[in-house]
């Protein structure tokens, strides 16, 4: 039933369809207007709210209108003087932020939106906050539902009549808030009714939303607890600054969820901004401002590059390799690369590379030191030692004495012989103790020198020997044989699609059921944020053992989710007629093609490595040689010292 109303400017309007209904009021289409809609309150707003609306419509300007659905004109009932609502810009055709940062929604509904798009949306979101703050307003109730974006990355903030607004020295408070976007310093508030919000409070929620956008929908405070009593709720983690991706997260008794995107995705300066936003310094008033985020995200969006998989794989230029490809190696797909290239393998060019690799001879091991570079003079025997000649003389004297005694007194021959044997034995041991001690000492020195030398030789061989060359060659050989097998692997995997058809069809089917659309009892926005932070978004992701492990999800909620999934699963009917699709085949080809390009690059780099091998190791040999020669010299000296004894 159409409603006739009058605007503050005296214009008559006809309200048409109800577009949406909230707790406070409903949004209606304005007949004859595509660009504007009207919000009408269920009950006539109180005087304070009426004043707020009057001030808001007075303070509106083009900059606010560019980024927000700001009240532009008041709406009065046709026959009464009260303000019953206001006119604002329409958000139709725009997507709510959570359906943009949710990987599951994005992959299915907007598969063409790459990370660059998310960076742009984040940038424009920050710009919207900057404009608000610049006007002296504070959003207050930051949440995933009050920001929308268009396919052109334009961002519009809605629900403006709830914001904390300031005009002419008067402030109207924002009386609501959503727990998992509320900063630590406000987590202990019982109510927002009398809370004065600052831009620094907003900057917490803003940083959470930017984090969502850049890091696959994850919540910065959802993680794996490292201690008992930690991580039961997101709110509790926020209150205690348990930022799961902090550089000192483990000291905060929390770790990022498994398979999350590493913080290295963004340049270190931006990592530091998140750190500031989510830790104690931020709560003390030092969070990055919306303007700082605009500048940093501008910087980031100007420094993006893409990998060989095409424009959907966008990443920050400070990274060496594509982070999306390396996540795909772990079977985590954030951005689906479409438009794969056909399977015509350019074997010729890579065959040339391979031939060139094979023509490089394996270099011989580098020469070790052959002789000492110093003059080796054995350390003399210590003078305290008995000279060998002295012992011989002693034996001769003893022989003469014994023979003489035998001739002089043959009667006691037995006695002389016994004395002779005793004397002989004494002579034999004469000086041996001292010799043994010296020998032991010199042996120790020799062994140490040997050990030192051998260690250096091993290190030298490792760094300069041909082992590295041989290992690289082996790696390249195995890559080449994988490369040669790629066409066959492609054929096999396309054939295999047939046998995995049912499982794939079922997974596709289950992926269409979004948890955030199911309205499950007990699964509110905070639980949804936790689930999303662990990559659980659709029925396909729901498994008992995955859910029950999450903090705050006991048997009751796990059952709710699992039963819901299984209920959807029962509705699945395998349709063999829906065989392998062109898209399935294209995915296989894309994967193989990606691998092909990877191997090509590795083989080319490998060829360069082998070619430069001798050159690079020459310098390395030169670096090693002095130490090696010195050790060799020491060893030669120790050998000589020992051998002399």
């Amino acid at each position: 039933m159409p409603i006739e109303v009058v605007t503050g400017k005296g214009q008559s309007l006809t309200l048409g369809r109800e577009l949406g209904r909230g707790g406070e009021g409903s949004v209606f289409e304005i007949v004859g207007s595509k660009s504007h809609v009207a919000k009408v309150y269920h009950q006539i707003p109180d005087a304070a709210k009426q004043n707020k609306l009057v001030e808001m419509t007075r303070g509106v300007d083009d900059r606010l209108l560019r980024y927000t659905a700001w009240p532009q004109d008041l709406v009065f009932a046709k026959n009464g003087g009260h303000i019953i609502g206001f006119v604002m810009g329409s958000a139709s055709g725009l997507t709510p932020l959570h359906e943009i940062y949710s990987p599951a929604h994005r992959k299915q509904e907007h598969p063409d939106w790459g990370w660059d798009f998310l960076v742009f949306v984040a940038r424009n979101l920050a710009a919207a906050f900057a404009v608000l703050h610049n006007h002296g307003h504070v959003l207050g109730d930051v949440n995933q539902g009050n920001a929308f974006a268009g396919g052109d990355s334009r961002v519009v903030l809605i629900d403006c009549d709830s914001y904390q607004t300031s005009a002419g020295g008067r402030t109207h408070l924002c009386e609501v808030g959503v727990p998992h976007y509320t900063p630590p310093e406000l987590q202990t508030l019982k109510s927002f009714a009398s809370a004065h919000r600052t831009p620094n409070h907003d900057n917490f929620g803003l940083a959470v939303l930017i984090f969502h956008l850049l890091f696959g929908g994850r919540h910065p405070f959802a993680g794996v607890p490292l201690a008992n009593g930690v991580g039961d709720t997101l709110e509790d983690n926020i209150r205690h600054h348990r930022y799961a991706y902090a550089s000192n997260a483990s000291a905060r008794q929390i770790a990022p969820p498994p398979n999350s995107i590493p913080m290295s995705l963004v340049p270190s300066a931006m990592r530091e901004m998140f750190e500031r936003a989510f830790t104690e310094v931020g709560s003390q008033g030092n969070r990055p401002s919306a303007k700082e985020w605009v500048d940093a995200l501008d910087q980031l969006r100007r420094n993006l590059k893409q990998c060989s998989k095409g424009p959907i794989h966008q990443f920050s230029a400070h990274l060496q390799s594509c982070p999306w490809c390396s996540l795909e190696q772990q079977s985590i797909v954030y951005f689906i690369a479409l438009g794969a290239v056909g399977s015509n393998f350019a074997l010729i060019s890579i065959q040339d590379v391979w031939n060139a690799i094979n023509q490089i001879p394996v270099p011989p091991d580098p020469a070790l030191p052959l002789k000492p570079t110093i003059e080796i003079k054995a350390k003399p025997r210590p003078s305290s030692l008995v000279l060998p000649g002295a012992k011989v003389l002693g034996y001769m004297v003893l022989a003469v004495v014994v023979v003489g005694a035998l001739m002089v007194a043959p009667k006691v021959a037995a006695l002389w012989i016994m004395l002779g044997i005793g004397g002989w034995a004494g002579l034999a041991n004469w000086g041996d103790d001292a010799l043994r001690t010296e020998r032991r000492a010199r042996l120790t020195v020799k062994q140490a020198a040997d050990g030192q030398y051998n260690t250096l030789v091993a290190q030298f061989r490792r760094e300069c020997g041909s082992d590295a060359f041989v290992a690289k060659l082996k790696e390249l050989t195995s890559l080449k044989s994988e490369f040669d097998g790629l066409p066959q692997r492609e054929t096999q995997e396309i054939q295999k699609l047939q046998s995995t058809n049912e499982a794939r069809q079922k997974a596709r089917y289950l992926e269409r059921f979004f948890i955030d659309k199911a309205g499950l009892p007990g699964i509110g926005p905070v639980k949804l944020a936790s689930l999303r932070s662990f990559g659980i978004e659709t029925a396909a992701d729901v498994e008992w053992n995955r859910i029950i492990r999450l903090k705050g999800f006991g048997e009751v909620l796990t059952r709710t989710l699992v039963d819901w999934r299984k209920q959807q699963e029962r509705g699945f009917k395998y349709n063999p007629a829906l065989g392998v699709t062109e898209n399935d085949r294209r995915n296989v080809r894309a994967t193989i093609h990606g691998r092909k390009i990877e191997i090509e690059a590795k083989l080319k780099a490998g060829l360069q490595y082998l070619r430069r091998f001798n050159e690079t190791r020459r310098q390395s040999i030169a670096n090693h040689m002095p130490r090696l020669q010195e050790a060799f010299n020491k060893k030669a000296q120790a050998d000589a010292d020992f051998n002399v004894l």
Partner: protein
Amino acid sequence: MWETVSAAVIGTSHRDLNGVCQDRCAVLCTQQGDRQWLAMFVADGAGSAPMAEVGAELAVTAALSFVESLMGRVEFGLSDNLAVELVKDVRSSIYLEASRSGHSARDYACTFLGLLSSELGTLAFQVGDGGIVIDSGDSMFVAIKPMSGIYANMTHFVTEEDAIDHLVCEFFPNIAQRAAVFSDGIQRLAINMDSNTPHEPFFSSFFDVLATIKPEKRNQLQGALESFLDSDQVNERTDDDKALALAVLRV
């Protein structure tokens, strides 16, 4: 309107052990507008679960209240999804109680069998062992092929994590003229296990009584069923708890 009776009686082995019967059953004749509905439920608490009889009680109670709210709906279909919704409610009720009292749902392990019937048809569903026998006018048949777990003497419980996967549901287009739902305690007396067919004389004797009972004798029905279930004739064949719900449509 159906003539109904149901009873759950403790088995001899449980009587000797702790005196607690872990089977529960219920039968309900109700109306949605002017359409007559029959609802029958049986739950058999697992001997190994400490709170099994509470689980069985919760299961039957939750099922009855599901039917009650169903009767308030303008329209619903007898579908697999309806059975899933009902079983979800049963599970939810047990899981909430377990969480409230600091237990795990498996402490409440029980099987669950149900039947809903009206002129729109008959829906039979079960998780775990026990049986459902229906006669829609032509002949008596076992509604759902008996199920067991992967090992002999192992069954599924409605409290298991993946119970919805083990829920078997069958729809029959006709109203149930005669129906019986029972726990595995009397499965051997009631079903020819080899051919998976109902043991007709067993059921006929009950159904004949129900078909001809005079209103003034109705209040004797349950007592009679209980004494039968506790008779030597039955106890010689099984020492387990036994629950049996019966219904006959009288015109």
